[in-house]
């Protein structure tokens, strides 16, 4: 691989984050290239969600630099809202807007932030609802939907902004087991289309199928990274071995 010629989508250098006296991220450095799919795994409390959330500045970091799509997002001169337009985020708790219909969930930011016309926004929204397989729910309020459907709405809502990077924060952890598949299918298809993705998950099957690189975190540090083949066959770090034994 000619790693150095590829465009860096995310560049983290010495990122450190404290929650009170707890060190959630300890000088983490990580590069993610355009088109790459990176899966972050690790025990709970390892700092993986914090790492992901710091990439679109939902967490403020205490030290280090994060460059997203060429913008230093902790530079006061950089408009974080502009950067976030290009970075889609999917949450564990879906966070769909309960007071808006499914269609309105998808068109709101398009019209308010991207300044698209209602017509154009709805056209894009319907195409995405087709893609995630819930076009027939366009006029329904999300509270009437199952968890899996809500999460697909949330993914479509993020995609409606046509982001260059998608962040997934344990997107299937709050779902009933029978609904995990429908959400992962959407994500696998997205990966096949070439989207740059950073995914925090416990779904090892997804990691194996989709990831270009698997990152194992614990104690706020990246302990090991490598291809899924390497990672699932013989992780080198002792904590990684232990974690894989527990989870598989």
């Amino acid at each position, binding site marked *: 691989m000619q790693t150095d010629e590829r465009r860096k989508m995310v560049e983290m250098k010495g990122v450190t984050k404290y929650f009170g006296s707890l060190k959630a991220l300890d000088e983490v450095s990580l590069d993610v290239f355009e088109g790459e799919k990176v899966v972050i795994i690790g025990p709970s409390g390892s700092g993986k969600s914090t790492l992901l959330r710091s990439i679109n500045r939902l967490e403020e970091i205490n030290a280090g630099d994060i460059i997203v799509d060429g913008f230093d997002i902790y530079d006061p001169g950089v408009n974080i*809202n502009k950067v976030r337009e290009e970075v889609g985020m999917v949450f564990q708790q879906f966070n769909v807007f309960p007071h808006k219909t499914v269609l309105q969930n998808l068109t709101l*930011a398009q019209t308010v932030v991207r300044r698209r016309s209602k017509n154009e926004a709805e056209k894009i929204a319907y195409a995405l609802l087709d893609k995630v397989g819930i076009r027939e729910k366009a006029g329904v309020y999300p509270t009437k939907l199952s968890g899996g459907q809500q999460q697909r709405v949330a993914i479509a809502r993020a995609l409606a*902004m046509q982001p260059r990077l998608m962040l997934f924060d344990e997107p299937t952890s709050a779902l009933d087991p029978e609904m995990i598949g429908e959400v992962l299918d959407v994500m696998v298809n997205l990966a096949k289309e070439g989207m740059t993705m950073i995914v925090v998950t416990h779904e090892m099957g997804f990691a194996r199928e989709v990831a270009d690189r698997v990152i194992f975190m614990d104690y706020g540090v990246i302990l090991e990274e490598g291809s899924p083949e390497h990672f699932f066959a013989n992780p080198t770090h002792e904590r990684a071995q232990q974690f894989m034994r527990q989870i598989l």
Partner: protein
Amino acid sequence: MVEIAPKKFKKKKLDEHQKVLIDVGDGAAIPTKEDVGLFTAWRVAFFGAIALTVFLCVYKPDPYLDIMKFVPDGILVTFEVTVLSIMLALVIGLFTGLGRISKNKFINGIASLYVEVIRGIPLLVQLFYIYFGLGRFVQLPPLPSAVIAMAVCYGAYMGEIFRAGIQAIPKGQTEAARSLGMTPAQSMYHVILPQAVKTILPPVGNEFVALLKDSSLVSILAVADLLRRGREFASQSFTYFETYTMVALVYLMITLFFSKLISIMEDKISAD
């Protein structure tokens, strides 16, 4: 007045799914779901008041019917003061509530100071202060003075209602809106406030009833509201007992009517 129950809100660490308890401790006898019988307190009070009023007017038209002919002008003024005050209080309350959750220390400090100061001074004193006290610098006519004083006072309480309502919305909603590229103002306007309205409406309705009753205080400023009209009638005819009986009955019927309306509205909202 309405007291927002959980004081924990001050600590900002809010459990995502914690429901806000907005304790309705004031207002007239608002019927609750448990009161299913025909003789609920609300029904007895409301229809009893109507029956008594009609009975008195028919049985002893002098002075009761004369009183009922004299005071309706005052009812209109009472409504005028109440509606204008509540609308202004809502605007003040919105900005106060936003100020109270602001991360900007200066704005937050101003909003908090306003709430603390206003809540610590009796409404009657505030009315005197604005009309008689500040009259030394700007002499406003009685009605605007009354409306401003009521709105400034109730704005502080409204501010706390708005703050609690906004903070009751899970943090994830703001995060989702912001991660779509919305500015703080856009996410507040398009995502948070429309959801907060549900929690805010019932206590606001309750404040409306409380304000309607407190509006009787403006009669002190020579605003010809319901109570003032009653006073005028009584002092001419010396029928104090009869007049204030009728004035009390009219207030009772109005507040019970609105209390019922609000509880119906509350049910509708929670049914959604």
